[in-house]
Every structure is written in C-alpha cells, then in structure tokens.
C-alpha cells in the first residue's frame, strides 16, 4: 500500500469513527419474508417467466439439442469442458482454448447451468462443468441452456442459499435487453440476442 492510500485509509476510517460516535443502534434485521425453503418451486411459473422475457422454452430430452440448434441454422457450436458429449453426437464442436476472434465468429454456444429461479425466470451460471468461463456464454449471439428440472428453485433466497459466492456468477433472465429508449423494453443489445432453454423432463 502506498503512503498516500495508507493516509487516505486511516483518515476515512477515522472520519467513520467520529461520524458514528453517537453509537447508532439500528433496528434488528427481521427475516420474516419468504426465506429459502419456504416456497415450492413451480416449473410452470418458471416457463411462464422465461417466455415473458422472450426466451424460447423447449421441454424434452437431451437428444433434442441438435434439432434445436439445426432449427436455428447452427451447424457448429461452442461446447464448454464438462458438457456431456453424448448429447452432441454429430454437430461440429468448437472447444477450448478459444480466442476472442473465434468466440466472436462462432454461431452459438450450448451450456448447462448451476441453478434456476422460477419466480424470476432466472438461470444462474457458475463456471462449473458444462458452463465454461464467462466469455463463452457472452460473445456468441446465440445461447442454448440446458436446465434439469431439479435445478429449478422457487425464489431468489433459495438460489442464494446454494450458490458459492467465490465462483464467478452470471445471473441470466432472458436475452440481452434494454429499457433505455423511452423506458420501453427492447430485446437484443450486446449479450446473446437469442436465448433458448431446454428443460429436461
């Protein structure tokens, strides 16, 4: 730490001590909202939320993956390490290590996920097996996520309870969007403009 930042640090901490010399005693934190484990996960609600955010939801088995990609005109796809090879018997695969240029020219990416939240239509990636590093699900314009039914949790508190904060986390709720023009939501800016979800049943 440089001398300047050490001085600044000491001064800020001293200012904080003086500012709170009245010893504020805040109200206790009461968690009487719906905490983890208090609500049942509702798969239909999850699908409804995803559709509301203009994601396309498929239900079925892993052998549908290649058909979903083919319907989108995707002949070659980025496949993160740990993604089940038997789910992609014939399609062309791009695998790590991949540079930025390769990621940018790829037609799409398939990943698994860590958990999903029904109430908000959210899918969380934590760079675990089948998900890859963050850039993989960001740069390609198309993202197909495979979600297992048992990964769907009811609410945000349920997801927080099982996620590991020390992993890089990406919470995804629908395709990239903006509300910056007249506060109306428009899908498709910098992230993947098409989000397909395959819900394994």
């Amino acid at each position, binding site marked *: 730490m440089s001398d300047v930042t050490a001085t*600044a*640090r000491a*001064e*800020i*901490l001293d*200012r*904080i001590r*003086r*500012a*709170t010399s*009245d010893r*504020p005693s*805040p*109200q*206790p*934190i009461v*968690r*009487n*909202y*719906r*905490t983890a484990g208090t609500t049942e996960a509702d798969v239909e609600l999850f699908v409804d*939320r995803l559709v509301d955010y203009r994601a396309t939801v498929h239900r079925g088995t892993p052998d549908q993956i290649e058909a979903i990609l083919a319907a989108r005109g995707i002949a070659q796809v980025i496949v993160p390490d740990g993604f089940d090879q038997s789910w992609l018997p014939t399609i062309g695969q791009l695998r790590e290590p991949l540079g930025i240029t390769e990621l*940018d020219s790829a037609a799409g990416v398939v990943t698994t996920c860590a958990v999903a939240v029904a*109430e908000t*239509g*959210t899918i969380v990636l934590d*760079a675990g097996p089948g998900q890859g590093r*963050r*850039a993989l699900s*960001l*740069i390609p314009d198309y993202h197909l996520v495979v979600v297992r039914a048992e990964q769907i949790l009811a609410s*945000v508190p349920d997801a*927080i*309870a099982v996620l590991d*904060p*020390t*992993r*890089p*986390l*990406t*919470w*995804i*709720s*629908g*395709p990239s*969007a*903006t*509300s*910056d*023009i*007249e*506060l*109306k*939501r*428009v*899908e*498709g*800016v*910098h*992230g993947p403009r098409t989000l397909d979800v395959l819900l394994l049943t």
Partner: protein
Amino acid sequence: MTFLGMPAASLTGGNLDGEQPFPEAARLSVGNAQLRRNLGAATHTIRGKRAAVVSELPDWQELRAAGAAIKDDVLANLERYLLQLEQQVTARGGTVHWARDAQEANRIVTDLVKATGASEVVKVKSMATQEIGLNEALEQAGIEAFETDLAELIVQLGHDKPSHILVPAIHRNRSEIREIFLREMPDVDPALTDVPAALAEAARGHLRRKFLTAEVAISGANFAVAETGTLAVVESEGNGRMCLTLPKTLITVMGIEKLVPTWRDLEVFLQLLPRSSTGERMNPYTSMWTGAVEGQQFHLVLLDNGRTATLADPQGRSALRCIRCSACLNVCPVYERAGGHAYGSVYPGPIGAVLSPQLTGVDRNPSLPYASTLCGACYDVCPVAIDIPSMLVHLRARVVDDKREQHRLPSPEQAAMAAASWTMRDSRRWTRALRAVRLSKPLRGWRLLPPPLSSWISSRDLPAAPAQSFRDWWTEREKSRDE
C-alpha cells in the same frame, strides 16, 4: 445545528452541484415542452411496470423493512465491514485503494490505467464515476473513456449530461436519439430508423470492436459483500458483462456505503432492486465476482467524497441506505416536470435533493432541500424506506442555520420569522395582529407586495382574511352563552 468535531464535507472536483440554483434551472426546463412530454411518457410507463411487479410479491413490505435494517446495520458498523471487505478482496488477489474525495479517486484510477499502458478504457454505467467526473479527468490525462451503457452512450455522444439515475438519457425520445447516432457514429447506417430495436442494433455495432479489444474496464458496483469480498453489478444489455469479463484489467469504483454484511443479504436486495428500478422481476444480467477471477487484474477503489459527512448527521444518514433504483424519481411530481438537469447534480429527484446537499455540504446546494412538495410519494416507493420528506424538512432547517452562521445581519426571511414569532408569543399581540389584517381587507387580492413577500405571492394565492377570526367567534359565543 452543527456537528462539532464531525467530518465536514470538503469536496474537491466532481458533479454534485450545478451552476444555477434549482428554481432558476427548473424554470428553464419547465418551459421546454418536448422535455416535459418525453419525461411524462417515460415516468408513467415505468411507474405502471413497477407497481405491477411489486404487487406480485406478497412479502414486499417485509423485504423492504429487512433492506432498511440491513443497510442501517452497515452504516452503524461501517468501519468493521469495510475492513472485512478489504481483507477478503485482498486475500483473493484484488488490490484495494482508498479515496477521500473525487480528485483523489480520479488520480488513483488515472495512475492505474497509465500503468497498463492503455490509452482508452471501456466503462460500465456507474453513478460513482459520474459523481467524481472520472471521464473528464481521464481525458485530461490523454485517456479516452467509452461509455457502453446505451443511455450513457446517448448522453456521451450527444455531449449532454445525465438526467436520471437509471436512464441517463430519459430526456431524449427515439427521434432525438436517432439524430444523435446519425451525427456522431462514424460507422452508422445512414438509413437508420428510430425504431428502438434498430437504435439498439446500431449501438451494438458501434461498440462491438471496443469490447473485444479493450485492455482496461472501469465499473461501479451495486453491492459488495463484506463477508466474502463479492462484488455485484446489475445490468440489462450485456455491456456490463463485456466490460467485467473481457479486459485484462478491471477497476471498480465504489462508494463506501454500498456494502452488505453477508452473502445472504443479497437475497433481499436482488428482489428489491430490479422490481424498483426497471420494473422487471429480474434484470437480464447480474454479474458477481470475488477478487481477481479468470486471470484478470482487479482493483477496487473505495470512495468517501462526502459520505462520512452524511453519516455524521443522525437525521440525514439514512440517505446512505440508497441503492440507486430511481423509483423516487419516477413518482415525483417535481422531477416529472423539472427533469434531472435542473437539480445540477448527478443525483437528481427526491433522493438527489437529500443526498447531494449532504455530500457537498448544504452551503453548496442550499436550494435542493426545497425542490419538493413534500407529498411523500418518494417515501412510499423507496425499497429501503428512506423517509425523504422528513429529511428534506430537516435539511431545510440546516440550510437556514447555515445561512445564519454565514451572515451577521438577519435575512429578510429571518426578520419576518422573528417578527411573527414575537407576535405569536403573546395572545394580546396576536389578537391585535389578526384585527389589523381584517381591517386591511380592502387590500385583499393585492398582487403587489414589496420584496421579499413578492416572491411568495408570485406563485401562490394570498388567502383572504375571514370576516371574523376563530378567536373572535369563540369570545362572542362564550359571551352569548353567559347571557
């Protein structure tokens, strides 16, 4: 009231006050019909969306109370949580810097960028860096900063100033945005239409190469978890993910109050924030990272810039609970008509009216605590239950006290108040005064009063004095009873 020995706001640099006081600036913007139409349409849209998604949650009030209590705990134990955060971030490969004011923060960031050898940076929308005027400081050092949030891009390309916390270009409509893009984007398709999807596409094309080649990114943070050192950025477009993920060096500038104590606390704020700000159940993208991840260099700059001065006022400190959702702007009748620029600070609207004067000291923003009708709509929608109306009244008192300390001679307002106080303190004096007012009945409806009373009358009707005062009526009634 002065806070003896308390940290006083002593800011150098930054964008927290304007050149004109609020009434003058507001008079100009209220006369701009286009601006009022744009603001009216946008704020009504977002109000409806927010109300719908908030009503979906049966436990909204419980979440709101928990959010307020968690933030108050942060403020009461700020030193402990900051040290915990510093320790966690450092342990995971990040470097923590401390900045007392805007100038110091700008110098730290400029030096960090220079050390990488980069001559340009990409930026995620951040109120903290707007507040300190970082882009201007980088420009002076020969470093070009590219705003990547769509609304920030519109503001930057339009050589304009932000006018809203969440949507800095809320004062622009689609056709104005199209004109800015056509004029300022060298690579834009000249056939660009004003359909929002086409405008978003143009922004995508314009920024793509920047994202893929940038060496350094600068961001703010929505939350920092003291317990784990985790930082969170909440966004919609994916520009945040691009900046946080791709460049080799990431510099995050964060106000010292943006902490939450534990990882679990995010379960509250990730429900409160998106529903309050964009009126969505969840924003499209939230990124969380702890320390330096995936081979990046990570620097965290902790910014005071008037926050400890705000913390020192027990009746004003809860303004630091603010999570920058901007729900209070969208419901405010004053904001809707005056627009964000009239406030002169990067923090406009009701929260800006209580936060800006506290960050700068009331002497630099004396008109802002009056930029409100005290209707209370802001308090109702605030996801962390900041009692903005009460705080505005408290700050008005601080403005009056501050003026009294600055000037030996009483102001006309103080003289009038002293006279009123003398009159009202004695019942005979008061009765005589009331009679005098009634006797001046022919003067009723006068629109011409001498200054300073004229400024009161210019925007308000002078109520007519009743034919009989309550006191006279009561005395008469008691008399007739006795008879």
